[in-house]
């Protein structure tokens, strides 16, 4: 039986990293596997994305342990939650904005009650004794913080000061003895003679700097005119490719890393590595996939082709076609466009890393299969 604690820890790490959806999935899985796993219920409550889910999880925890303090406190807080819909939030925001604008322009601010901070109530609910859960709840709370998010009072002050300076500046332009209205228009539009001449000088300077600093920039191409290999693109594991009427793909996560030293009586050079692919033939003629159709590559620069004999042996010892996989690697595929699973066995060096699978006809597109086979 798998250790559920490992998966609980995995969920906690996901929650800590801010990946609440993954954490929810993991905790939900644990509750499905063992509905009496109270820790999973509490954590699920901690990463739930709405009050209903949280309440349900807390209630399930209480069914398991009616005296569970964390669940009780969580439910009490939810029941006392005065959180309401967007109307109240909008009203609170408008009131806060009025208060701020009133202060800015010297009017009496409308007295308002401070809007309830639901997030504080939630933050104060430790749902489980672990520090990690508290951290997860803090992350949760940040997204549920209903404090209006307008500019801060400091920002309002800065904006006011800028507005005041602008008014003073405009006033001096109009009232000042040396400047006429015409000067003001020219200055404010940046079209005074001085401004134009300055701009011309700066542009000329920039051009001369550019000409002397990088004389070759416009003389020679930056990239040598030599053929460069097309970069290899790794595909999503759900993607499929087509070549010669064959459509093939590695179904997620049918990425096989067989770590057995030997598959049968024939020893491997190093390690057998199994990749299960789905292949369909729509070419119009029945086909046997050539041994070199699929290639496994590693970061050491080695290419591995399918060991057809071993692949067929796997199907045989597994009970024949349709038991282990639909077909063996050396089988003829009927042209019926039906996807069939096929186990490909590669004889891979033990130190191989970053294994990628490629198919014939698509040498630049492949799938990341495994980091290593150690």
């Amino acid at each position, binding site marked *: 039986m798998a250790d559920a604690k490992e998966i609980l820890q995995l969920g906690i790490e996901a929650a800590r990293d801010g990946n609440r959806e993954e954490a929810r999935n993991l905790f939900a899985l644990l509750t499905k596997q063992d509905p009496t796993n109270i820790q999973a219920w509490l954590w699920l409550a901690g990463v739930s994305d709405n009050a209903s889910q949280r309440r349900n999880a807390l209630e399930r925890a209480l069914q398991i342990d009616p005296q569970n303090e964390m669940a009780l406190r969580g439910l009490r807080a939810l029941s006392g939650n005065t959180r309401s819909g967007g109307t109240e939030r909008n009203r609170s925001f408008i009131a806060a904005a009025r208060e701020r604008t009133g202060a800015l322009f010297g009017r009496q601010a409308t007295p308002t009650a401070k809007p309830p901070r639901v997030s504080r109530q939630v933050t104060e609910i430790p749902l489980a004794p672990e520090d990690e859960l508290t951290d997860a709840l803090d992350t949760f709370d940040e997204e549920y913080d209903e404090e209006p998010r307008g500019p801060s009072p400091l920002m309002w002050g800065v904006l006011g000061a800028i507005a005041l300076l602008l008014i003073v500046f405009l006033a001096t332009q109009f009232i000042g003895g040396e400047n006429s209205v015409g000067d003001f228009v020219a200055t404010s539009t940046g079209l005074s003679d001085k401004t134009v001449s300055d701009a011309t000088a700066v542009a000329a300077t920039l051009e001369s700097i550019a000409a002397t600093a990088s004389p070759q920039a416009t003389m020679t191409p930056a990239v040598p005119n030599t053929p460069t290999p097309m970069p290899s693109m790794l595909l999503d594991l759900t993607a499929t490719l087509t070549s010669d009427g064959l459509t093939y793909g590695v179904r997620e996560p049918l990425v096989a890393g067989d770590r057995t030293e030997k598959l*049968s009586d024939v020893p491997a050079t190093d390690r057998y590595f199994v990749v299960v692919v789905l292949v369909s033939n729509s070419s119009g003629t029945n086909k046997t996939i050539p041994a070199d159709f699929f290639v496994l590559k590693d970061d050491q620069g080695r290419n591995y082709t399918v060991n057809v004999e071993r692949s067929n042996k796997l199907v045989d010892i*597994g009970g024949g076609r349709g038991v282990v996989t639909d077909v063996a690697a050396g089988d003829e595929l009927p042209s019926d466009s039906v996807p069939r699973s096929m186990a490909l066995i590669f004889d891979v060096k033990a130190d191989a890393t970053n294994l990628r699978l490629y198919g014939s006809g698509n040498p630049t597109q492949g799938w990341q299969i495994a980091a290593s086979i150690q």
Partner: protein
Amino acid sequence: MAANAECQALLRTANRLFRFDDLSRARALLEIMSDVYPDEPQIWAALATMATDDAEMTTFLSRASHANRLSALPAS
């Protein structure tokens, strides 16, 4: 085909663990998933990739094939 989006997301998590060499937790996750979703062929096939011996791999692949045939049956 995975049963639902949650199962697919968990398969992606297992795949990520596998690819980052966290084999212990990848296998633990897949084993729990196989308890919850026993008719999901992808889970059994993924478990087969982590088999520690021939017998285990054969068992997992057989379960994958069986589940795959079940999922291919038309809904009655």
